[in-house]
């Protein structure tokens, strides 16, 4: 049950170490603050879940943000109605997102390829549009679902438990400990390691093999006696639940749920993260998520002042040039850097960061080995 292959054990150990030591190695990168590290962990969970669907079965969902959003709304409602404890919030987030995934997956999985992608996109966009407008009583529309002091919180009330957070708004807590800041990060990190482990298990299992079979050759799968519908649906629901967990964690670390989380651009983001890191690899999607979040949060925050300070050592003219050129790529220009990064990575590292890296290493190794002199270009 808990067995992992030798290689996977090592991977898991390294991964756990990397995640837990984030506050250390992210510090020189300017990203070692709880808010961002929580996001790193949460989006990595989201990406891992997405990869179980996309990486293993090849079905590209363009509506996964819907499950993230549903997870968030559920968690906030759990805070509002039941308790400020994060356990029920996360549990319900996962379950409700799974339920949504079941329904959306049931219909969308009737189609394959691009038709499937557009179906998921359409479902998610409907969720988004409705959440933004008609469903405002449930979602609080544009401004997002927020906690209020006079929320019922029946479980807390029944237990007479005082909520964490003093006279102000209550804040989410794990068994009475507020989950803000670093504690919040470590909760996310622990769940990230757990999801990584589960994904390792799935990758190595006969279930994972069946999913890969579906990606590789559906005809063969069918005539080999597999009923691919339930396999696909299971993969879809599992990945929806991971997304729900990520959404729940977003609400746990920052109790607000907005419709924007469900927009197609967010679904697109997770697709990009996964591809950037490497579809179908275990660690790729995690790295992709980190890279994009890093750009979004750190590159966008660099402004001319900071550049000026950095290039202070240069002579004035050079400093101006350096700052002018670089300022096109940071701050309001961070998108440009991201776009270029996407292009350069696919061009030079086919298969995403992880695959590309492995290929590169292999090529360098081979370069030293024997090979008849290549006449071509």
């Amino acid at each position, binding site marked *: 049950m808990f067995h992992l292959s030798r290689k996977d054990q090592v991977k898991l150990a390294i991964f756990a170490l990397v995640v837990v030591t984030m506050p250390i190695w992210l510090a020189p990168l300017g990203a070692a603050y709880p808010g961002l590290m929580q996001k790193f962990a949460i989006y990595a969970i989201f990406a891992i879940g997405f990869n179980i669907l996309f990486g293993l079965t090849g079905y590209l969902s363009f509506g996964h943000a819907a499950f993230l959003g549903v997870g968030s709304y559920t968690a906030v409602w759990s805070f509002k109605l039941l308790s400020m404890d994060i356990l029920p919030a996360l549990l319900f987030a996962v379950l409700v997102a799974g339920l949504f995934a079941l329904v959306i997956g049931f219909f969308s999985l009737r189609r394959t390829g691009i038709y499937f992608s557009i179906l998921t996109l359409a479902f998610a966009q409907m969720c988004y549009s409705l959440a933004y407008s008609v469903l405002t009583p449930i979602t609080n529309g544009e401004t997002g679902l927020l906690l209020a002091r006079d929320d019922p919180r029946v479980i807390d009330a029944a237990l007479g438990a005082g909520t964490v957070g003093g006279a102000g708004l209550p804040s989410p807590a794990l068994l009475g400990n507020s989950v803000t800041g670093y504690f919040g990060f470590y909760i996310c990190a622990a769940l990230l390691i757990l999801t990584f482990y589960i994904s390792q298990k799935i990758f190595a299992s006969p279930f994972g093999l069946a999913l890969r079979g579906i990606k590789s050759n559906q005809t063969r799968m069918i005539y080999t006696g597999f009923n691919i519908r339930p396999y696909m649906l299971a993969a879809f629901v599992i990945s929806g639940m991971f997304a729900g967990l990520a959404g729940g964690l977003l609400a746990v670390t920052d109790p607000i749920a907005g419709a924007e989380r469900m927009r197609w651009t967010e679904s697109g983001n997770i697709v990009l993260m996964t591809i950037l890191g490497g579809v179908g690899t275990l660690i790729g999607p995690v790295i992709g998520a980190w890279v994009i979040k890093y750009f979004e949060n750190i590159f966008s925050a660099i402004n001319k002042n900071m550049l000026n300070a950095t290039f202070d050592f240069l002579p004035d003219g050079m400093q101006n040039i350096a700052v002018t050129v670089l300022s096109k790529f940071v701050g309001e220009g961070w998108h440009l850097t991201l776009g270029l990064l996407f292009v350069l990575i696919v061009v030079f590292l086919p298969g995403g960061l992880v695959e590309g890296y492995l290929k590169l290493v292999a090529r360098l190794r*081979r370069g030293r080995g024997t090979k008849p*002199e290549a*006449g*071509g270009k």
Partner: protein
Amino acid sequence: MNAAPVTGPAPDAFFALRDVHAYYGESYIVQGVSLEVRKGEVLALLGRNGAGKTSTMRAIARADEPAVMRGEIWLEGQPVHQMKSWQASQAGIQLVPEDRRIIPGMTVEENLILSQVAPNKGWEIAQIYEHFPRLAERRNQEGITLSGGEQQMLAVARALAREVKLLLLDEPYEGLAPVIVREIEHIVQDIKARGITTIIVEQNAVAALRLADRAVILDSGELVFTGSAQELLDNADLRNRYLAI
């Protein structure tokens, strides 16, 4: 872009391979094949599964894979190794691939029309239908729904619809009923009679050797035998070792 630099003058032979090495990505498959074919000759290229026959044929036809990393391919003094597949085809090299490659979503007739879009037409379509009445019957059926034998006919027909200087037949008899094998054999003989140079890859060595003037045997990407068809038929040891006949 796997054209190799010219290292020597064009050979006198009608068609020649000179020390061709080809790769699928990292894997080294065709390992230095050299051979010559005279005009109007039929050459049988034999060998076990995985020996590299198809790879050699594809290298000649300049398909993207395998990539020719070294060596030269010459047809009538033209450096084929510097061409792309479409240029090779326009130069007169027509490959009938082992998996036939009938184009999905197109009818039989469209498949034939398509092969005449680029310059240097061969047989007229009417002429083809005359030779392959089965195709004429099925002309409006989607090509890939044809039965295996019918697809094979279409693939050969498609090659003949273009000007052929060198015909590459990769397992043309595979999956064909004995009668059809006869039929295709007749066609190939007919082609031969018209003086079209042919390289044929075939597991059915007996059938291939019936046609061929000369034969070569490929094993693990290298040539292990070159000689006349008769020589091979007479050499029981070789036949046993490489062809199991």
